[in-house]
């Protein structure tokens, strides 16, 4: 089912007064789509998801699942009457039940009642889906984090909900397991064709799993688009820096031709780059360049049309697949990703080169 969120508003009353948690959120999730809300903690992504689940009551706006308005005009359908399945950040696996009974629970409720021979079948089938069928009779306190995660997923899917809500489901797992489950969840949701809303603060997760991403900050959506869009064409410095690493250079526009590359003067040099529409000479701008787009050399590259700046190595951290290098450029710290074989010495002067296409320019 399609999920539509319209002008969603949510306020909290706190000690400091009224806090606006959601300030008019608008988005649509298409049928079968994997949609991710990405943002730092406190940006309202979890609140949005919880409003869709029915666990929070929005103060304004509408939520429509399929054809049905589940929240709007001051009314809010309780969670048990919505066609959803949900995985919580803490998994929320009931410790007083076995794995089987945890997963069977949704099938014992009025709205999604399934009589017994079929219920057992459905539970086992779903457990198989998450590779937990062998542990069906195990009491849940004896499960590892990853296993609990799988049980939670099975429980969310067993009643064949229209919409799957995932609230930072991988944040409590270690890095290795996280990567594994990332792929599994993605595959599972694609096979089932289920509409999925995923909430995370981890940009790698968001990029790897999503069909579309909405980047949120302070109760608003800043940008919505495919992972490629978000990463390659960020619309604000915040999005650029939240999704992936980025270096910012502040400067003034020196040349702004009607077509072709403009020129930005940043003090330590000047860059050729494409300017946003309507930028005029003298405008203050920020030029963003991702570290992996910079190549570092000991001698100045003389390739035509390439931007080059000069920096002194302040720190070099060997990461295995690359070297994370920090350079001081005109008093500013710049990060560059350097080949793993480079043998860098502290205090060494390097030339950083990057193509104009690698630059994104934001107007101030």
């Amino acid at each position, binding site marked *: 089912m399609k999920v539509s969120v319209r002008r969603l508003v949510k306020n909290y009353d706190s000690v400091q007064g009224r806090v606006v948690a959601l300030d008019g959120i608008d988005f649509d999730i298409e049928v079968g789509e994997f949609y991710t809300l990405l943002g730092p903690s406190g940006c309202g992504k979890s609140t949005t998801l919880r409003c869709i*689940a029915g666990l929070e009551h929005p103060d304004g*706006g509408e939520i429509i699942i399929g054809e049905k308005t589940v929240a709007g005009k*001051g009314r809010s359908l309780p*969670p048990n009457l919505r066609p959803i399945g*949900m995985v919580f950040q803490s998994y929320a696996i*009931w*410790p*007083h039940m076995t794995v089987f009974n945890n997963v069977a629970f949704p099938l014992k*409720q009025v709205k999604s009642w399934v009589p017994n021979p079929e219920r057992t079948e459905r539970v086992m089938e779903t457990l198989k889906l998450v590779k937990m069928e062998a542990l069906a009779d195990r009491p849940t306190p004896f499960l590892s984090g990853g296993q609990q995660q799988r049980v939670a997923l099975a429980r969310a899917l067993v*009643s064949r909900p229209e919409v799957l809500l995932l609230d930072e489901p991988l944040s409590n797992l270690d890095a290795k397991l996280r990567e594994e489950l990332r792929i599994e969840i993605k595959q599972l949701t694609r096979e089932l064709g289920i509409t999925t809303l995923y909430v995370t603060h981890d940009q790698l997760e968001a990029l790897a799993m999503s069909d579309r991403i909405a980047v949120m900050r302070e109760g608003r959506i800043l940008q919505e688009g495919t992972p490629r869009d978000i990463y390659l064409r960020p619309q604000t410095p915040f999005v650029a820096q939240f999704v992936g690493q980025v270096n910012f250079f502040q400067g003034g526009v020196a040349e702004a031709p009607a077509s072709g590359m403009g020129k930005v003067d940043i003090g330590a040099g000047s860059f050729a780059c494409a300017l946003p529409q309507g930028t005029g000479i003298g405008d203050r701008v920020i030029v963003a360049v991702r570290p992996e787009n910079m190549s570092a050399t000991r001698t100045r590259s003389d390739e035509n049309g390439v931007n080059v700046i000069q920096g002194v190595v302040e720190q070099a951290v060997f990461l295995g697949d690359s070297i994370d290098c920090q350079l001081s450029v005109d008093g500013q710290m710049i990060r560059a990703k350097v080949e793993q074989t480079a043998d860098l010495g502290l205090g060494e002067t390097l030339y950083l080169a990057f193509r104009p296409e690698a630059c994104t320019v934001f107007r101030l």
Partner: protein
Amino acid sequence: MYVDQSARPGLMSRLGGAWDRIRNNVLVIGVSAVLVFLILVPVVRLIINSFIEGHPSVPEGWTLNNYVSAYSMPIFYEALATTLWISSIGTFVTLAIAVLFAWLIERTDMPFRNMAWVLILVPMAIPGVLFALGWTLLLSPKVGALNMLLREIFAIVGITFEKGPINIYSLGGLIFLDGVRGVTTVFLMVVGSFRMMDPSLEEAARVSKAGTFGTFMQVTLPAMLPAVLAAGMYSFISSMESFEAPLAVGLPGGIFVLSTLIYFTTRIQAPLDYGLGAVFGVTFMLIMILLLIGYRRVIRHSEKYATVTGKGFRPRVTTIGRWRWPAFGMFVLYFLAAVVAPFIILAWTSFLPGYRIPSVSVFPLLTWSNYVELFETERVLNMVWNTLYLMLVTATITMLFAFVTSWGIVRSQVRGAGWLDTFVFIPHAIPGIVIALALIMAYLSPPLRYLGIYGSMTILVMGLVVSYISFGTRLMNSAIMQIQEELEQAAYVAGAGTMRTLFTITLPLLFPAFAAGWIWVAVHALRSFSIPIMLASRDNEVFAILLWEYWDEGSASLSSALGVLMILVLVPMTLLLRRFITQISEQR
């Protein structure tokens, strides 16, 4: 700025939203409404009746005379002063004994410390009234067994007494009973602090060149002070409300406290004066509410201290050297006074046709006949059924109400949850005797008298539920706070409604706490005294009523036999309670 019109929904949709909320919380709202009714109606009725002349069932109009006459009675001020005096000195005695034992048992190398830990709980199994009755048998001035013994000892050195030398029917006697009685509760309240106190605080003092004594005075005691103070306030409040010893010991000695004054005014004297009783009740209630506000202040303050953490420390044991055995001796003495002596004299009396001073010559008289008589009396069997009913129904209703109310309070589903939290704490400030009086007023006066529950088991259950609901909700509050909210939310998302979630997810998860609360209430209902005595009638005879009637008629033997049987029932229940409490603390 984004202006959202739908953020201000119209009247109809706002009503719809309110209706949604109500529908989703029917259970919480229903239970809260019943509780408000149970608590508020009697209290309001008590206050109203204090301004009304005549018998509650035939009110004769408004008046201030009740207040005028109550506040011009010297005995009222006398009783108030006596109550305060006994409670203050009694609390002081209790605190001294309890804190000393907490320290000796938790932090020193006193012999048999682990055994002492268990033994100090035994007094819980002895109802206050039996404790008092036991001591009157021991220290009644003429025939008290201990007094006889003392007279013989003094005779050896040439001093002779006609009676005494100790008279239990005195202020001193009451203070003694009150002081010894409160030890177990205060011990339990402070022992945790002694156990949990971070030993590194003391070690830091030692390293900073303080001696053993200096460390205790400058670090240990100040760190314990908030806990001790809170326990002291609590003990003082309990002493103020105490009814059993003042009834058994105070009345025969002509000493009134507030609770017995109310009892006397509304149940004994002729003619009964309900208006006067209501004024005493209202006054008593106000005093207790003030005390309780003070208590909550103290507690809030004590929570600021972070010295007592939840970490499992291995407490540092202080060596007390040659004081080890004297310390143990003190504990033995306490245990004799609190448990052994009163129990033995009750047991002794229960095997005799009437009370006799213990001696070898009486042995041939020993008989089972009292017990046989009890088991053959239909009234007693009736009483047993009533008591069981009272226990089961009170414990179940109290804990279910507490569970649902606390859930509403903690999860804040209903607006006004904070208000509800304060509200259910009120009964904690109302002495049992006043709750009972208020219920009498409420269900004797029109219009509620037409319900016909005055004098029934129902009114007894109502009284007990009201007096234990504060305990129940506080226990359930902390239990529910331990349960992660997402566990419940997972159930909603899985399709379960509120009711179903409460009883298939939340209740099973906090079962140990629920069971502990249930047993606690059951134990207290079983041995409840003041409320049954006040509300006694032919159709709702329970243990306390019969016990007191036998005693009052001069049949100490039957009374003792009944008491011994009760203690035998209470001991295993208390041990069961301890098991559940241990289970809860291990879970956390």
